[in-house]
């Protein structure tokens, strides 16, 4: 590979997501009717925010070189728990919802950190269990409508979490240690870093974020087990497309945000221009693979 080629591929890796985003937004302004209306934007934000929140938590786990496949089930679980506790007030309900994420995150994290189970396997098991519990809880219950938060609050929460994760990843001991663990686990251990604690914490955070996202999701079907089925994958795609490689050792928070927006925008563009949801889904599948190919072998 020549230097120009390798520079080009490095650029694609790091900034491709922004370039794609700008191109897509511009062409939308030109092509799609009603693209910049308030109503369209509101609708997009409602769809975007849960994916974004899950992706932020996922970025932390992927930064360690792991992955969390259970996020969809965790969303379903917190969405199912929410209506049960909503009678006691919003704050206890939210706390109960977040707690489900903390607990499932602790389960995956312990399996990964202490029992050295591969992250994919551990979180897959938690996915199956979480989904089972969600189904049992929601059995016969009327499906929740989430917290019914208005759009400005959604945006506020999303921005707050973006800031939190940016600071966490870049400015804190935890974030710096996390990236080092993802980059070279042996070196991290030899340098006296609390490897297990950092791993556990990253899964707990990812679970909590997924739980929060679950509470913001409107359940469109009567079966809560389907909640978040695709969101977990979208989140992984957003993270990877944004420049965080699946092999870990690096976290790109803004890239992740851009990745999430990009995926939502692609879907929206297709749908707005008359393509069926199924086509949008297939396109997303192609984006996933493309993102992984682009990030292949990078750190």
């Amino acid at each position: 590979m020549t230097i120009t080629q390798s520079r080009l591929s490095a650029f694609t890796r790091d900034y491709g997501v922004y370039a794609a985003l700008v191109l897509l937004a511009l062409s939308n302004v030109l092509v799609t009717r009603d693209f910049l209306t308030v109503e369209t934007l509101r609708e997009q934000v409602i769809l975007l925010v849960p994916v974004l929140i899950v992706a932020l938590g996922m970025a932390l786990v992927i930064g360690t070189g792991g992955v969390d496949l259970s996020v969809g089930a965790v969303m379903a679980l917190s969405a199912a728990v929410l209506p049960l506790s909503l009678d006691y007030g919003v704050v206890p309900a939210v706390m109960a919802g977040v707690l489900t994420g903390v607990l499932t995150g602790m389960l995956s994290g312990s399996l990964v950190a202490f029992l050295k189970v591969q992250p994919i396997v551990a979180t897959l098991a938690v996915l199956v269990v979480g989904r089972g519990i969600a189904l049992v809880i929601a059995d016969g219950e009327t499906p929740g409508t989430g917290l019914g938060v208005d759009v400005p609050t959604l945006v506020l929460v999303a921005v707050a979490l973006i800031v939190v994760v940016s600071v966490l990843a870049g400015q804190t001991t935890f974030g710096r240690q996390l990236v080092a663990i993802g980059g070279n686990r042996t070196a991290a251990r030899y340098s006296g870093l609390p490897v297990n604690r950092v791993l556990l914490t990253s899964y707990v955070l990812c679970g909590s974020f997924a739980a929060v996202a679950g509470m913001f999701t409107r359940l469109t079907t009567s079966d809560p087990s389907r909640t978040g089925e695709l969101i977990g994958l979208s989140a992984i795609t957003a993270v990877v497309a944004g420049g965080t490689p699946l092999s870990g050792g690096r976290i790109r928070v803004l890239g992740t945000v851009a990745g999430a927006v990009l995926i939502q925008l692609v879907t929206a563009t297709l749908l707005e221009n008359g393509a069926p949801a199924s086509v949008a889904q297939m396109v997303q599948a192609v984006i996933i693979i493309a993102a992984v190919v682009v990030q292949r072998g990078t750190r």
Partner: protein
Amino acid sequence: MLEAARVTKRFGGVPALRGVDFLLERGQVHALVGANGAGKSTLVKVLSGVYSPDEGLVFHRGRPVRFTGPQDAQQRGISAVYQELSLVGSMSVSANLYLGKEPRNRLGMVSFRRMHADAERLLDSLGIEVDPRRELRSLTLGQQQMVAIARAANTDSRVVIMDEPTSSLEPDEVETLFEVIRRLSERDVSIVYISHRLLELFQICNTVTVLRDGQVVHTGRMCDIGPVELVSSMLGRDAADIRRTGTTAFTHEHTPAAQEVLSARQLGGSSHADNVAIDVHAGEVVGLGGLAGSGRTETVRAPAGLRHPGRGTVEVQGRQVRTGSPSAAIEAGIVLVPEDRTGQGLVPHLSVRDNIVLAALPRLSRFGLVSQSKQDGLVHTLMRRLGIQATGPDQRVSELSGVNQQKVMLARWLALSPKVLLLDEPTRGMDLDAKAQVQALVEELAGQGLGIVLASGDLAELVEGADRVIVLREGAAVAELQGDQVTADAVRAAIAERGT
């Protein structure tokens, strides 16, 4: 049979082989020797098709070849037994012997009966006594090694490369191996034999090539060289020569204090480095000598908590340190610069800054938030003090030269103001100037009162750098040299004792 001509191979800009010529003739048993990091394993991987050379050519039967991979090389009759066992532990011995070329019946299915029979015949012909039906991992390491060799020697191999075949063998197993080699040699099979055990080389090999720092420094008939000369050419220049010119930056301007900083007992692992004890005074450099596989690395790593807990004792300034935990050791002030800088020390893709502050992060933080000003101040100070040459603190550490990478490692530890510095081959793979820079730093740190343990295969470095040298052989301390006793000849004699 097989030849390498002017072969150069680099990893991330660092050359592992520099213009190496190597000629293997039919039926030859060719010893390939050199200190750790001299480039032996890299050369082996070039010859067996795992790596392709950056420069130079490989000739096979007189014609230049470019192997597409180990599979390609194997098809041309060149197979290798690697240091890291390349077998599948959960499968039977015969499956391991015949994976990829299984005997089949008429339906295309594996005929296990024939496979076992073939395996029995093969093992028998080589004089290896192992039941081919057993699961591989139920065998001793030595037996597994023999199976790996049998696989490599199977059927139409013309060249067999053995990388440290005896490192895990018991004495009687070594005899079996030699028998195997003799039988192969009689069949005109050429063998490349890598070992640190000198005696063996004289027993079994007829030709020898010595590598040092990625270059060939000697090649010739085995009977024309003596063990001491062999050690000399492996480890560096002649003793007299070293004394005259001085190849290291050590000046011995530090003076050990009376106070002991480190006192470690029974640094024994399960089989290596048993009953070895190290005491280090403040401002003292204690050298650990011995060939690779002598337990040198295990010994220097043990006080840093890199071993199963519960064995031996480690005290820092009289206070007991929990063993088996790197963080406990670091907390107590014991830090290690590991031999494998990029694999075990640095986080290669992170910046110089991130690598320097990695261990010090909690000290630079309040409520978990890293103070940028404190961090930048520390990084700036350390980069200047150690003379780290980089485009800036943001440069990726993987882009630095070996010596600057090593300085980053040292900077990481100096940020913690440690009491004991353990160095494992700190100048491995560096040129003389780079070595001198690191050595000068080590000297300076000793002068500032650090207790230093220097494990090195570089004789000059050891003799000129250390106040005291402990020589290890086969996991045991065989000599402790002090003061005037610390000479290259004395160390060499202690190392080569069994070989002479």
